[in-house]
């Protein structure tokens, strides 16, 4: 197996804290399905650690969810949509293989036509990839505010085990230079060739999973260990320096295994595991967890976010919270969306997912 290693070395002003998060917002659909419904249908629920998950309604998709999350982020940031210079949209399972979806979002939220937009896709690390690009956009001086929005509602064949854990959700961040609630002190990315254990060929409807556990574990560990240790070296940090560490949440168990291997403790990771309530939200997963952590965190605390995309690669960010985090009141939190829920049965789930 040939392994090609490309390392992106992040450099530039934003590493010294001049770029970061001005505001954020999420959108989680209100429908939920419990693991028990799967057991009734299939006799098993094959997503360890997931108790229930969010389900996009019949008329929802990543674009509609992204628009909602974006409006929440704009509200939090206290800016106007017309201030936005860039919209980067990320989804591992977007409704279109070819059509600018960032344009739909940009227009729907009222952003100007003179704007840079791009769609990021093809893996569950698309969300962090979009965030890194947004940081570059602002740091390089191309604009003052960038909107990064990741939204996913992945689906797979109902008879496949990978389908059990797939959830729905969206999260948006406004990236800027001033009045930051959190700045990025360092980033690192890693890319190595692995056959994606989780993949979809062009034109295919359903997400597929090779289900070769030892191979998936090998790829995951190799990528994560390389990426996170190099980030630590760059910013001169160690696991104990972080209050929270967010990893890719394919289920409720794998992120803990990864974290422990990297030297973190369970209490740094368990509070970040939103997948236990909303399922695997693909490219939005790490960023939704980051948003829920930001709802609860204190100034000067540190958060590590490290995504993983099959095929394979990782983006890692070392984030420091500022005093401004306490200034915000009156915004919809992740908790608000989590509490607003309505359970559906498996039949309704199938209808929403257009399975019957």
């Amino acid at each position, binding site marked *: *197996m040939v392994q090609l290693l490309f390392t992106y070395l992040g450099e530039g002003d934003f590493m010294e804290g001049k770029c970061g998060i001005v505001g954020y917002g999420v959108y989680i659909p209100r429908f939920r399905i419990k693991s028990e419904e799967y057991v009734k249908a299939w006799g098993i629920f094959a997503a360890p650690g997931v108790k229930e998950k969010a389900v996009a309604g019949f008329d929802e998709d990543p674009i509609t969810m992204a628009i909602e999350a974006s409006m929440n982020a704009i509200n939090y940031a206290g800016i106007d949509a017309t201030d936005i210079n860039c919209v980067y949209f990320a989804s591992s399972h977007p409704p279109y293989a070819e059509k600018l979806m960032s344009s739909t979002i940009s227009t729907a939220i009222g952003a100007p036509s003179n704007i840079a937009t791009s769609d990021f896709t093809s893996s569950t690390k698309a969300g962090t990839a979009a965030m890194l690009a947004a940081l570059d956009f602002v740091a390089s001086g191309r604009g003052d505010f960038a909107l990064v929005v990741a939204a996913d509602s992945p689906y797979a064949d109902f008879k496949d085990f990978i389908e059990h854990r797939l959830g729905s959700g969206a999260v948006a961040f406004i990236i800027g230079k001033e009045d930051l609630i959190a700045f990025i002190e360092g980033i690192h990315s890693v890319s190595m060739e692995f056959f994606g254990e989780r993949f979809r060929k062009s034109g295919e409807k359903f997400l597929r999973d*090779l*289900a*070769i*556990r*030892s*191979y998936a*574990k*090998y*790829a995951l560990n190799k990528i994560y260990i390389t990426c996170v240790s190099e980030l630590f070296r760059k910013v001169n940090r160690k696991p104990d320096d972080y209050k929270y560490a967010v990893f890719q949440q394919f289920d409720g168990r794998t992120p803990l295994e990864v974290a422990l291997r990297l030297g973190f403790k369970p209490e740094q990771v368990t509070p970040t595991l939103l997948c236990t309530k909303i399922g695997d939200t693909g490219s939005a997963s790490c960023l939704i967890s980051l948003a829920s952590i930001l709802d609860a965190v204190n100034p000067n605390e540190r958060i590590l976010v490290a995504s993983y995309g099959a095929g394979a690669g990782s983006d890692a960010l070392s984030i420091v919270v500022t005093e401004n985090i306490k200034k915000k009141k009156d915004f919809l939190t992740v908790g608000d969306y989590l509490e607003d829920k309505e359970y559906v049965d498996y039949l309704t789930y199938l209808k929403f997912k257009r399975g019957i």
Partner: protein
Amino acid sequence: MYKVAIIGVGQTRFGEFADKGVKELFVEAFLEAINDVDKGIDPKEIEEAYIGNLGVGGIQLGNFSSMAVDQIGLHGIPATRVENACASSGFAFRSAVMAIMSGVCDVVLAGGVEKMTDIPRDKLRYWLGVSGDTEWERLAGMTFPGVYALMALRHMHQYGTKREHLAMVAVKNHKNGAQNPKAHFQRETTLERALNSPMVAYPLTIFDCCPVSDGASVAILCRADLAKKYTDTPIYVAGFGAGTDRLSLFEREDFTTLMSSVLAAKQAYKMAGIEPKDVDVAEVHDCFTIAEIIAYEDLGFCKKGEGAKLIEEGETEIGGRIPVNPSGGLKAKGHPIGATGTGQIYEIVKQLRDEAEKRSRQVSGAEIGLTHNVGGSGGTAVVHILRRG
């Protein structure tokens, strides 16, 4: 007929290796075996090779032996793939012995390799079931654990064996495996944990079942009268035996015993001129914990039906009357199907040479060792008796 000696053995660690395929594994074991020959051997002296492999995953079903000798740089020599399910390399070893006994060859390689962890779980289930009767067992829904579960239930019914006895086998073998750097699992377990673990096929829990492993093992054999040229510590093949049984469970008169094992053991003891009580250490085929208990009886280590008593009394621990599976057995050491047979040979050779790693696993003063390798649910079985020089 010539006598046969083992002059070198090698084995990879058994386990899950995402970055090693059959080729890498076999080469690794081969190189270790060559380097194990303490006075040195030129690989080109090897005249023939018998290699065990089931072919899980279908990676190289045709001409496997040719691929294997090609990879170790011995293309040109006659090579044969031997397949008898889980007893593949045990039978490969037996063929190598007979090739030397007959006088056709002086130096022969016997080994085995299997790669099992590179296919999805549901495909693996198919491959694990191919060693039963296809028409009447496999296609009727029988799985490999299912077959042994039936044997366990019958043994429990006929002889009062309890689930606790099965768990005791798991505890012993994990304790041994924890001290074996080559074992797949190197962690001990407790009786409670084994008994309360998820059920696979009643009464067998996951702790009663051996794992799915990758691995390879190789032994180099030569004519006994030439052995001292290669090593000061040759281990001699004192006897061997093999047998078959009705393939399907439902055809057997009594499936609390494996006729193939009983026949193989009888032949081996007779050839070696010994009795069961003369065996100092044994590696038996514990694909499931019940298989070890049945093996105690089939190999004559105890009376029929008293296998449970033997494990309960601790007689088969290292330091007991008849240490069984000091390597951790298939349960803890792992079971890469094609490699298990010569893996057992590897362990017994190391024990008889007083070279067991770690030293805490060494059975002291072992002079006569036995290996017991079974194919599937007992369709085939082969026993070897090895003796220190």
